[in-house]
């Protein structure tokens, strides 16, 4: 055991990091590999690669993912900020490059091929974006002369444009929600919230009215008979087939016909093979991370680290929630990976960065004194009369 008197970097980290959050993230990472044993072999067979191709890749990616998470969790808030800035700039450059040199898949350019790896830069953009927005908002609160809010708008506009250009509406929506959520968390007045809410609703309605792709998805959600709901129906069948305790590992059959069973619909596969009980465990791990993370944020005295923590947690939580809700047919289908669980190298590494940053920001730090603020002022001569 490391002594508390030990002041080494590692010892300090060990004593200050939130062990429960760390354990929860670790659980998800290992769970992702275990569950990919269930979900990815049928896909591998379908596309004609070796049965455990995806499992192996997921396991291999786990090593850098763990390293990144631990390394990130060692950082101080200031370092987090800097790392986020660097990551943001790199991601932005890569995203621009993607538009010109990206791999086109299913009508979208989201991937870029670098050094033998296909990378989805938008995955890495998300956590960096959140940290930067937190920085801008907290700075603008601290020093009035910093046009933080303006920069936050510009930053979001740039990211949104790049994402829509791909096009990737799911990520745009996620980023927009997190962005708006951070304004909310920063204590924006309810009046503006309502105005923004109206704009958001109008935006969604506009998307519904003018983007046939969105119209289609929503229609199919509201009226399943209006179109092809194969994926969602199959996902529901998975849960029904699984029941409370599942059919058992490897016994699933619905997964064989479920498209994207190893990525967007892995939760349904978990439902079929391991049952609703394990699904509930998985959901509660996500819920634990989100609620504990937000709880940390609520206690944080520092504006930046409070906002950054809350923003990252909301990012992580929203992505998971949307994926779960789509799997359970609680909302229109939207391609969104389940952090740590879904197959995907970029997604895994990005989730690891997010997790690492959350761990870093929630480490116990010396707090500013809680004494009252004392103002000394001169009495006006008039008051002496």
């Amino acid at each position: 055991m490391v002594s508390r008197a030990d002041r080494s970097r590692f010892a300090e980290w060990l004593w200050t990091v939130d062990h429960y959050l760390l354990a929860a993230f670790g659980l998800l990472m290992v769970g992702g590999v275990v569950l990919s044993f269930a979900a990815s072999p049928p896909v591998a067979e379908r596309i004609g690669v070796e049965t455990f191709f995806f499992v192996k890749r997921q396991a291999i990616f786990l090593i850098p993912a763990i390293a990144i998470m631990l390394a990130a969790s060692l950082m101080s808030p200031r370092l987090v900020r800097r790392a986020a800035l660097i990551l943001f700039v790199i991601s932005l450059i890569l995203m621009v490059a993607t538009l010109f040199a990206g791999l086109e898949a299913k009508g979208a350019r989201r991937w870029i091929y670098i050094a033998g790896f296909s990378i989805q830069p938008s995955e890495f953009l998300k956590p960096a974006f959140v940290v930067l927005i937190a920085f801008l908002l907290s700075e603008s609160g601290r020093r009035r002369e910093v046009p933080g809010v303006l920069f936050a708008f510009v930053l979001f506009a740039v990211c949104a444009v790049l994402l829509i250009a791909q096009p990737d509406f799911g990520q745009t929506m996620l980023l927009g929600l997190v962005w708006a959520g951070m304004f909310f968390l920063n204590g924006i007045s309810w009046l503006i919230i309502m105005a923004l809410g109206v704009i958001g609703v109008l935006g969604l309605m506009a998307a519904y009215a003018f983007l046939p792709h969105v119209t289609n998805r929503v229609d199919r959600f509201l009226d399943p008979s209006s179109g092809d709901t194969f994926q969602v129906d199959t996902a529901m069948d998975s849960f029904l087939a699984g029941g409370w305790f599942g059919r058992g590992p490897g016994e699933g059959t619905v997964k064989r016909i479920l498209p994207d069973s190893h990525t967007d619909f892995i939760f349904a596969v978990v439902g079929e093979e391991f049952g609703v009980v394990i699904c509930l465990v998985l959901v509660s791990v996500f819920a634990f991370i989100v609620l504990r993370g937000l709880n940390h944020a609520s206690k944080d005295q520092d504006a930046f680290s409070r906002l950054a923590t809350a923003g990252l947690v909301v990012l992580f939580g929203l992505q998971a929630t949307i994926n779960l809700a789509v799997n359970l047919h609680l909302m229109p289908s939207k391609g969104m990976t389940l952090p740590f669980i879904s197959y995907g190298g970029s997604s895994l590494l990005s989730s690891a960065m997010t997790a690492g940053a959350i761990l870093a920001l929630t480490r116990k730090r010396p707090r500013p004194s809680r004494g009252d603020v004392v103002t000394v002022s001169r009495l006006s001569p008039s008051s002496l009369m």
Partner: protein
Amino acid sequence: MTLVTEPASFLQVRRAHPRTARGSVSASAVKSRVYVAMLAFACVYVAIAGRLVLLAETEASASTAWISAQDSVSASRPDLLDRNGEILATDIKTSSLYAEPRRILDVDEAVEGLTRILPDLNEKVVRHRLESGAGFVWLKRELTPQKAEQVHNLGLPGIGFLSENQRFYPGGPTAGHIVGSTNVDNQGISGIEKYIDDEWLSELQALGFASDRSIEPVRLSVDLRVQHVVRDELVKAMERYKAIAAAGIVLDAKTGEVVAMSSLPDYDPNDRSQALEKSRLNRATGGVFEMGSVFKSFTVAMALDSGAVSINDSFDATRPIRAAGRTITDFHGKNRILSVPEIFIYSSNIGTAKMMLATGVARQKEFLTRLHLTERLKTELPENAAPLLPPKWNELAAMTISFGHGISVTPMQTAVAAAAILNGGTLLPPTFLPRSQEEVKTLGTQVVSPDVSRMMRYLFRLNVLSGSGRRADVPGYTVGGKTGTAEKIENGRYVSNKRRNSFLSAFPMDDPRYVVLVVVDEPKPEHDGIGATAGLNAAPTVGAIIRRSAPMLGVMPRFGKGDEPIEISY
């Protein structure tokens, strides 16, 4: 807080107020926002958990249905019986022995017990399998019930049976087209099997009740013995006349029940793959053909029923009819004036067409519709073809229809219509299920008058006594019938050397009990020098069928003063 802008003063005041974040927003406000976010997330997670629990609960009922369906797939179909209770189709239930080696307590005991009861099991192999520690191993498939019972009585833990079931048709192809067949999941895909699925069985299975082993058997109107006779005679006829196909129907003239129906080539329902071959389709209800001169029976009945023609009228058949560039001639031309009975027994196309003309086109159309010859005739079988009608029902079409060309109907339709005009004028829809007298009364519709029906019986009998149907006669059973020799159409033209022959008959003619229809496709002359008309192949086939099946059907032969025509005076 009062901030003072006045010049510096030596007096100072200290005021303490709570520390706020050095920002525009107070820490407590932010804190409450985070709590709102936490609440929102908590609500969403509760919703997700609720949905999961709901799904798991829904599953509970769905899953039992699924299991029982899985179970019933192989088990629960009712037996199909013929009218005498003979089995046409049944489920064979076999038990297959398996073991769950991990749950076996004493391998020695298990091996000893199993090999004692099932001596053909290899002791070494069984021991190896039981010691393997696997979750599940098969030991022996398809045990007899006795052996299964003995093994069961050993009471070995970890040894169990799975019930495997298969549809079996003991008669093989005999009634293949009637009973139909099932797919690998034991769902009916054709014939009566599909009918019972569509009617009630599939719903029963969906509700999970079909796993019950004792579903009431379904009894059909078919008589397996007669069915065998019909098929046997058709097989012989196909061989003898080198025909490419044949169909035969025995219909109860008084009730509309189908007693036998065979279409060759047929298939063995135990071997489903055969059913896919196109040539094996059910011609009796699923194929439509130009029935040829057999149709003259309907034209004559129509003419007599309309009152426009009486049995004593005569028509000039000396010259062919020319209409719209077509010439209608007679095959057995007599080239003289023919009476109605002569037109019928000599099968005069000219005379028949003239009888039709005397009656009128509209009436013909109406009469054939009344006999259900112009629309799809529904039976329990899913295989029912719709008739092919002329594109324009003008006078030329009407004339050709009068002697059975230009309209294609199923043999079953023909037999049903014939039963109506011979049984006293009551049209009864055909059925493959037993029909009670009450149902007959409610279902029957009068289509021709009893008088006309009597005259038609007379004509049918006359045709067998002194017309083209002589070879169909069976002593004692007063067979009556009409031949039909239709030239087949190839590439849109009639070819004279390919025929489809039919013989439409009923017996006994004084009070017809059964209608028998035989169609032989492309028969060749039996030997050189003779023709291949219906009277030479279809008629003797009908004769053979009646000879063999009438005694089974309980029709008493009557030998009066010689084989005289029935006494009818007009």
